């Protein structure tokens, strides 16, 4: 066996670990002590003590909670900081405040029903979750998606990605003091939501995809709406650039904080803009093209710095690529159906259901409990797509029933948030905010 490679940041084998400090909450500890077996290797939680005897302001450390209710955490994330003055000596995180049991729900809902749940994961870009899940199910069932539906999916996913990226950048700007950036970003996001509303009927929780396509066609003026929005976005990205890049205050705050080397980024499982800002050109859209991404001419930009500034610039550059993809896709939007013709998979038209018996049977077979879409028993797939935050994977195991035996979501955010303590140790508290902002951790998909 070859020599094992050590994960960076992990304690060496046999190295003495500092004894975990006790938590001040007696009640919590009583519960923990009750069941030591399930507590694993760590007998005590590692959240830091706020004990008066040890905690003073005369040169020692104090414990500070950043979140779960804090404006800079943009969601329910709890970061516990051990600080000496303004400097972070150690950090620990706690998540799960938004844990909703999506994966458990998947075992009790039919494949089509669970599309609505995917909206609630990364709620900043629900469309990408819809598409990712639909593609996983299509792989599971072996369904062909009509070309028109694929192109619509690409266009809307890329708009969703744009909205996600600019809001992330806008909030990052706000966190380091450029408040107007946030307002501008949110204003543009509303424009994207207008488009989403026109197409899907909802602004935020789109639930647009169905297994085998999308649930309805785009409106007649879709073409002009898309083209206007692309023009507007190009102008807006220029504004965002001129506001931030080269701005002395902005650069001082963002450069050199939260640096991730490319080796660490791969080892820690980071994906998406964060991985690419560390110099690895891995993009699922290029590595394993889906929905016809191989037809479009686009680059996978990368940065060298690996710091917060690089991640900010990376998102801006990816926005440009998304606009390029949209411009190409809208030119080549074919005519045709938007949902698979296979009536075992897609629901028939409602008019048809009322008029002929065959459609009524298809409708019944899909809706009634115990029927539905039935993948082959024992089949399992892992399918991944490029969501704005990175690789969004779905691992589905089927037992031949109408609901999946297991659905696992591989959310990018959970791997991004796991490295936060390592990134912010040794920085100032305000730098921690700048790092957290560019990681773009979305609590919905983090906790699921």
């Amino acid at each position, binding site marked *: *066996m*070859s*020599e*094992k*490679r*050590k*994960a960076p*940041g*992990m*304690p060496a*084998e046999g190295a003495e*670990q500092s004894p975990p400090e006790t938590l001040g909450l007696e*009640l*919590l500890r*009583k*519960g*923990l002590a*009750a*069941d030591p077996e399930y507590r*694993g*290797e*760590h007998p005590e939680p*590692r959240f830091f003590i706020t004990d008066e005897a040890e905690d003073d302001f005369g040169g020692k450390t104090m414990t500070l909670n950043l979140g779960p209710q804090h404006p800079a955490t943009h969601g329910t994330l709890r970061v516990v900081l051990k600080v000496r003055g303004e400097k972070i000596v150690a950090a620990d995180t706690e*998540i*799960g405040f938004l844990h909703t*049991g999506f*994966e*458990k729900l998947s*075992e009790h809902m039919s494949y089509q029903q669970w599309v609505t749940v995917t909206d609630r994961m990364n709620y900043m870009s629900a469309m990408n979750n819809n598409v990712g899940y639909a593609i996983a199910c299509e792989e599971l069932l*072996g369904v062909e998606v009509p070309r028109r539906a694929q192109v619509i999916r690409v266009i809307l996913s890329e708009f969703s990605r744009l909205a996600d990226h600019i809001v992330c950048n806008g909030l990052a700007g706000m966190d380091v003091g450029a408040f107007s950036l946030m307002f501008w970003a949110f204003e543009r996001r509303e424009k994207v939501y207008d488009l989403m509303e026109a197409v899907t009927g909802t602004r935020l929780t789109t639930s647009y995809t169905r297994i085998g396509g999308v649930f309805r066609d785009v409106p007649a003026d879709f073409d002009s709406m898309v083209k206007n929005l692309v023009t507007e976005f190009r102008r807006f990205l220029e504004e965002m650039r001129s506001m931030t890049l080269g701005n002395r205050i902005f650069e001082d705050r963002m450069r050199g904080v939260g640096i991730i080397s490319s080796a660490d980024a*791969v*080892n*820690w*499982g980071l994906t998406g803009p964060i991985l690419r800002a560390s110099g*690895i050109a*891995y993009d699922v859209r290029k*590595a*394993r093209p889906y929905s016809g991404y191989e037809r479009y001419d686009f680059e996978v930009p990368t940065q060298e710095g690996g710091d917060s500034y690089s991640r900010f610039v990376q998102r801006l550059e990816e926005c440009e690529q998304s606009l390029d993809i949209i411009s190409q896709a809208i030119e080549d939007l074919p005519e045709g159906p938007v949902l698979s013709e296979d009536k075992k998979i897609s629901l028939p038209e409602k008019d048809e259901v009322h008029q002929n018996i065959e459609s009524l049977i298809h409708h019944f077979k899909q809706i009634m409990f115990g029927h539905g879409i039935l*993948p*082959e*028993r024992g*089949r*399992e*797939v*892992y399918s*991944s797509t490029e969501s704005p935050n990175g*690789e969004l*994977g779905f*691992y589905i195991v089927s*037992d031949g029933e109408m609901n999946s*035996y*297991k659905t*696992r979501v*591989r959310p990018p955010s*959970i*791997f991004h*948030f*796991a490295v936060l303590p390592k990134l912010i140790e040794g920085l100032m508290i305000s730098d921690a905010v700048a790092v957290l902002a560019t990681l773009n951790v979305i609590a919905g998909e983090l*906790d*699921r």
Partner: protein
Amino acid sequence: MGTPLTPEQITERLSKQFGDELSVHLPPGKSAAQVAIVSRESLEDTLSFLQSEAGLEFDFLVDVTAVDYLHFDEPSIQERFAAVYQLYSTIHNHRFTLKTPVPEDDAWVPSAVELWGSALWAERETHDMYGIRFKGNPDMRRLLMPEDFPGFPLRKDYPLRGRGERDAFPQYLDSGPISGGAGKEGGGG
């Protein structure tokens, strides 16, 4: 990027190295990717072989999860759980799925944290949801559920609606664990 290998080629390389310790499972259906199954005794060796062997070089652990086969009536599946590893190589652009069976009464697998840092939280979540311990993982605290939660929600015998607060957190009741006595006001689920 090098040439990606198919899962079949990768299992072939693995079989050459490990011989009988490895079995291959092909899920049904067209274009199904092969899934290799290794015993947990040889899991560590297999993972480190996959990471370091020239031509394979899986430098990216995409995900760790588990499946609870409690209600899955299939004679070929002997153990209740299986830990599932999704691997990817940024060098060769290929990916691979590895499974290891985990018995119910002694639910543990060796940790992959020393090979990939991304295993740290992925294993933590799997432990949290299924109660499978990853030996060698330095942080086996609960991830999503509260620290003092007694159950494992993604196990098949855990009800969808949970067991209610009074069963899940008896230590917070005035009357102690529930035994017909009145719980705290508004308790229960």
